[in-house]
């Protein structure tokens, strides 16, 4: 049986950042993921926003971590070579009666230490974002809000963890956990694994995973969200727009992503099939979009997708507003119900867990830790990097080969690493060629 100091269960963005930060210490680390690749769960479908931190209650760990995560995002993205856009955000409302809500957010932001926020008049907001429907009552401007590609950030953390010595077991699901004198035994779909520290980052299944050994104190109730993605050529707002629910609609969010696409997310709704959209949801989302951004050309929508949100509740049925890291027994940590702003706080949460594990294991600092990870670059001298396979996003054979070398085993895995197939034809012209390259490299069609 293989033994590790720490095992991270779940290779979403949180598991990847936990693994990365465990390796800042001399802690032998294994990341276990049930799918064939990392970042295929919640991390694949969310709003991609790096929140400023004015939404969260002053004094909460969410507030504190969000402000810190936001402030550290530039240096984190530099270290990991992931594009980050600090585009700023406007929270707008069309009802004078909602203005006090905005004022409370501003006050929250002030108490949480969010820099540069201010209240705008309707005219000021309309001048900043001429595409917004006229008649704005007021808006909160937060210059520090930004956006980052969530799976790119997660994969970068994963690569950095591996480069620093973390081991990985993909296609391995943890199905049982036992305690033994010196720690825990994980029963998996493969071999059993022994470890002293377990960090549960199982996303939508984190409560069930904890229940394999401990009685649950947190329950996840899932709900859904829906998204539209627009062609980068569509005329779009420059800031992230949060529409505070009011008489003009239930409140959508529009995010000008780092890749140039506008992403629009709708309000929460009951979950039907995980990661599926519903006809009513899409209809409502289009209608709300037309109301808020009347000039937006929705004929330039290239994709819609559904997301799943894990909402944590106590056994008593009371909802848990803050991040909670459960620690039901020595050396066992569970991240249950880390929803928004989990992406913003992913490295902060990872750092915190790394420190907890290090303290528990009395581990020393890993002096060899290298925080830098190299992105897949466009090497213009190499002929493979001049052969365009994905015509819409201009992705070359060289980049795709490099994505395969770095662990992509499916067309989707390549897509998440280099962005092929994300464009206006949605992969209808390059999928075949990418499948062929995967096959040539031993990843046959399943």
């Amino acid at each position, binding site marked *: 049986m293989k033994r590790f100091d720490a095992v991270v269960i779940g290779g979403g963005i949180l598991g990847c950042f936990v693994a990365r930060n465990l390796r800042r210490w001399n802690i032998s680390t294994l990341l276990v993921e049930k799918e064939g690749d990392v970042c295929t769960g919640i991390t694949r479908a969310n709003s991609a926003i790096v929140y400023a931190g004015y939404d969260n209650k002053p004094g909460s760990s969410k507030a504190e971590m969000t402000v810190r995560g936001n402030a550290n995002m530039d240096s984190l993205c530099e270290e990991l070579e992931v594009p980050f856009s600090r585009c700023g955000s406007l929270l707008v409302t069309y009802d004078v009666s909602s203005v006090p809500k905005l004022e409370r957010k501003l006050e929250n932001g002030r108490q949480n230490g969010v820099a540069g926020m201010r209240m705008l008049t309707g005219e000021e907001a309309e001048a900043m974002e001429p595409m917004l429907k006229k008649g704005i009552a007021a808006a909160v401007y937060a210059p520090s809000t930004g956006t980052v590609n969530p799976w790119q950030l997660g994969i970068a953390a994963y690569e950095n963890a591996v480069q620093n010595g973390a081991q990985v077991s993909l296609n391995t699901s943890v199905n049982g956990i036992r305690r033994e004198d010196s720690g825990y035994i994980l029963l998996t779909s493969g071999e059993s694994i022994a470890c002293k520290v377990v960090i549960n980052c199982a996303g939508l299944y984190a409560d069930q995973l904890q229940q394999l050994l401990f009685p649950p104190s947190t329950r996840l109730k899932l709900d859904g969200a829906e998204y539209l993605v627009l062609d980068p050529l569509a005329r779009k707002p420059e800031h992230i727009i949060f529409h505070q629910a009011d008489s003009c609609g239930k409140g959508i969010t529009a995010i000008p992503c780092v890749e140039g696409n506008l992403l629009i997310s709708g309000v929460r709704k009951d979950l039907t099939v995980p990661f599926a959209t519903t006809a009513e949801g899409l209809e409502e989302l289009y209608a709300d979009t037309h109301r808020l951004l009347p000039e937006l050309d929705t004929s330039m929508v290239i994709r819609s997708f559904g997301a799943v949100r894990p909402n944590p509740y106590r056994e008593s049925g009371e909802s848990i507003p803050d991040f909670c890291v459960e620690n039901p027994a020595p050396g066992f940590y569970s991240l249950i119900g880390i929803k928004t702003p989990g992406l913003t706080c992913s490295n902060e949460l990872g750092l915190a867990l790394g420190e907890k594990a290090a303290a528990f294991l009395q581990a020393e600092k890993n002096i060899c830790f290298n925080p830098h990870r190299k992105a897949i670059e466009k090497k*213009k001298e190499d002929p493979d990097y*001049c052969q365009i396979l994905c015509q819409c996003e201009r992705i070359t054979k060289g980049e795709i080969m490099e994505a395969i070398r770095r662990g992509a085993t499916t067309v989707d895995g390549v897509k998440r690493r280099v962005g092929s197939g994300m464009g206006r034809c*949605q992969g209808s012209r390059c999928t075949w060629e990418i499948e062929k390259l995967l096959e040539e490299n031993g990843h046959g069609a399943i």
Partner: protein
Amino acid sequence: MEQYDILIIGGGAAGISAAKAAKGAQVLLVDRKNALGGVLLQCTHQGFGKNKSGIEYAADLIKDFPQEVSLTLNTTVLSISKDRTALLSGKEFGLREIRFSQLILATGCREIPMGALPIAGTRPKGVYTAGQMQAMMNLHGHTPEGPVVILGSGDLGLIMAKQLAQAGLAVTLVEKKDHCGGMIKNQRCLKEFPIRLICGDTITEVHGYPQISGCTTAKGITIPCSTLLIAAGLVPERELIFGMEKYDWLHICGNCNTVHPMVEAVINEGKLSGVAACNNLRGSL
């Protein structure tokens, strides 16, 4: 920097025809594929000119392709700028910038993918655009799994319905309009094969994950399927010249101008563009 009188982007019917018409000028034709012919090369059905297949038709077109035209295949034009330079990228020459006097855009069209349509449900495997499946079958020898549902009964939807029915697969066409959309000659397959046609309805939801298992229409009909083809329309491929439409050095022909059902019209437009580009050249001398 290399300089050409005329740069033609796209070596389909329109680009080939433009190259033939651009007599006396120094012409460079660039195509991202490894052969001339464009979409014709994936058409095995008879329907071009006098009952030729697209492949045969393309072979005829290429026969008298003018030798004086410089041809660069396997090369994508990445961008065009207003100062009349183009950035090319291909495995043979790497990144290459060229200067041109006249530009003929003959980049064809692309299909509308499922993502662009308000279709709810999961995002399963087994969903393709019709042209994508045409290329997979005719260029790569692939056969999809049946039963197949095709959204859209235009020419492309009908051509694929026929080919799949010929291959022995069960096919259902779903058409939003209250009648079949394609040309009469392409509708013949509806009589020759047991193809089910549902008109006045559209697909609103797909089911199954990771593989598609069926789809549901607006009127509530659920059709089991292993493959869904989207034949919901074609869009001219014009992003390269975004914001430059008004320049007189730009000539747009073929399917990137408007989507043409018949190749003859494409050839004709290509010719007009080639002549217009030459006339402009002479005018500017």
